[in-house]
């Protein structure tokens, strides 16, 4: 187990270096000259360009620049300053991250709740009405575009029925004083409910399908027959023998999907105008503010790597075959 963890941690560090490097190269090769962006775009004065170029070492070779970037990132934990308005990217992300975190984790809770209940029940009663309903849900979930689902939710529940707000975020700990924005836990929940469901739908559908298949497969295992031969009631068999084995691959998938999920948050945030990382990314792209974009990408990478590490530990903890290896 110890060796396994060390291996995963070293692997994560290596991935961090590779991904930041690729990120750096992508933005380095991008069409936008950061110096020009800093000096006010097309009307930039040559003196300003020269100053900025030298200040940031933009004329140095690629690897030197990467090293400066990496050094700044790791030693000073500094993601740089926005090309658009010079504000600290660190601060932008500090503001946006809780929004995205609320969306992703709340959504994940909903998607796992739907996936587990629907997946397990339809596995226990294949071809029943519930199973068929679940199948339709799965097909719609994987075929309808999340953006479209979001718009329909907004239209039906927000505009037509008026049950929920259709946009904006409410801070869980209360809005900043004098902002006039809504805040507090209830408002937070009230504002997030539609985004959560929108975000959760696609993954819920995929996971219903997977949980169902895994549970059905595990129900056919020999050790389940052993448990029945012992005289264990079906409920106990399900809880104690089937679920843990069936959910092992789900945990692995969760680790692999978190990156995709974070990407999916971009769409949800755009539709519901939530000021999260995704919206900052999109706004940054539209404003050619590549410092912010790069910051968001690097931050998301680190978050995903950390999350993957947690999933690895979790996996090792529930599977004794890895824990004791």
């Amino acid at each position, binding site marked *: 187990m110890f060796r396994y963890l060390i291996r995963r941690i070293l692997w994560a560090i290596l991935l961090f270096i590779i991904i930041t490097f690729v990120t750096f190269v992508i933005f380095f090769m991008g069409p936008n000259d950061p110096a020009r962006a800093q000096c006010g775009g097309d009307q930039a004065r040559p003196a300003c360009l020269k100053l900025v170029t030298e200040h940031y070492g933009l004329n140095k070779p690629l690897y030197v620049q990467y090293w400066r970037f990496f050094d700044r990132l790791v030693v000073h934990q500094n993601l740089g300053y926005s090309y658009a308005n010079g504000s600290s990217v660190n601060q932008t992300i500090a503001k946006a991250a809780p929004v995205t975190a609320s969306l992703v984790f709340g959504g994940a809770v909903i998607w796992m709740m739907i996936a587990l209940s629907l997946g397990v029940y339809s596995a226990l009663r294949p071809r029943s009405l519930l199973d068929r309903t679940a199948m339709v849900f799965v097909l719609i979930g994987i075929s309808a*575009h999340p953006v479209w689902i979001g718009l329909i939710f907004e239209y039906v529940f927000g505009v037509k029925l008026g049950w929920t707000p259709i946009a904006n975020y409410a801070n869980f700990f209360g809005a900043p004083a004098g902002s006039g924005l809504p805040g507090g836990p209830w408002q937070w929940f009230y504002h997030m409910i539609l985004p959560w469901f929108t975000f959760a739908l696609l993954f819920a559908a995929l996971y219903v399908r997977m949980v169902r298949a895994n549970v059905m497969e595990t129900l056919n295992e020999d050790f389940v027959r052993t448990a029945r031969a012992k005289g264990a009631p079906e409920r106990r068999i399900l809880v104690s023998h089937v679920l843990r084995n069936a959910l092992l691959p789900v945990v692995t998938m969760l680790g692999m999907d978190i990156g995709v999920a974070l990407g999916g948050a971009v769409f949800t945030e755009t539709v519901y105008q939530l000021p999260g990382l995704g919206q900052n990314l*999109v706004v940054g792209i539209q404003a050619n503010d590549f410092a912010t974009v790069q910051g968001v990408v690097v931050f998301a*990478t680190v978050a995903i790597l950390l999350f993957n590490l947690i999933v690895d530990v979790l996996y090792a903890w529930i599977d004794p075959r890895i824990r004791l290896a």
Partner: protein
Amino acid sequence: MAQRDEKIVVSAGAGGLGAAIASESGTELGSMEEIKARGYWELVWRRFRRDKVAIGSGVFIILLIFFAFGAAPIVKDMVGHGPNDLFLYAPAVNLAGLPANPMTHVHNPNTGHSDLLVLGAANRLGQDELLRLMYGARISLEVAILSTLGVMFIGVILGSAAGYFRGWTDTIISRVTEITMAFPVLIFVISLAATVGPQLDNITLGVFPQGVITLVLIFSLFGWFYPARIMRAQVLSIREKEYVEAARMVGASDSRIIRSHVLPHLVAPMIVYSTLIVASYVLFEAGLSFLGVGIKFNASWGNLLSSAVDYYTTRPLLMLWPGLALMLTTLAFNLLGDGLRDAFDPRASHM
């Protein structure tokens, strides 16, 4: 030791001694003799044909292709304007700046005729919703199918090379696959489309609308690992099969083994996964265009959705059309994929 006590023994066919006995005693064993040897593809087709849903999906996809590539130019000629033509003035856009409703007649300044917007205008620019839907289908299919081809091409070659040759080839390819998988794909694709996209947008190869090649390249770059993993696993399991050993025992060369014992078994998973991947790229393209980093000027279901956002309280139909088109297309590819999977491997779980 390897005695397997299968609960159901279905022995088909009767040759050799069994047949000899059967013809001697004239029993039921003999009746199995009549089962004709059928080819693999014939069996697959017979199973597929029974699946009405999959057949329906296939028909829908064929119609869609016709709709996008055959019907779109015809409709364009009939209505007298193109999908990108602007009708900036009333009644294509009303006084409140809202797009026109369906069945609106507008004056075409280029031809002087009065043109009909069947599904109304798509946006504040007054572009024709119907034509943009049709040309959007074209973009969707082009991006999705070309990306799938790209992804499968890289994935199958790398995956099967890793699986077949193992050793260093496998180590390197597998590590690169794992690294690619660790990238936050969506976020990277969005930033890539934004940074290098504008430079690539001009590549059209003379036939494709602007931006299509960009998306295909970006999708292929970040999407190949999925088929590569599947193909690697497939090839690894095939090459462990005793019949591959038997071929090597006989003295067959690598190329003969790959050609006659490995590749034929890859066709089924390749077809099934291609179909499912097409579905996901249809959604992906729409997503990027929705965010404004995919297809920018030409019609795409994604940018139709994004322009609908501005008016969905007053013109909800604008949001309905592209969304529905997207859903039906994705659904059709998904159902076709499921049907194909069942036809290829009837034991695979149903859902």
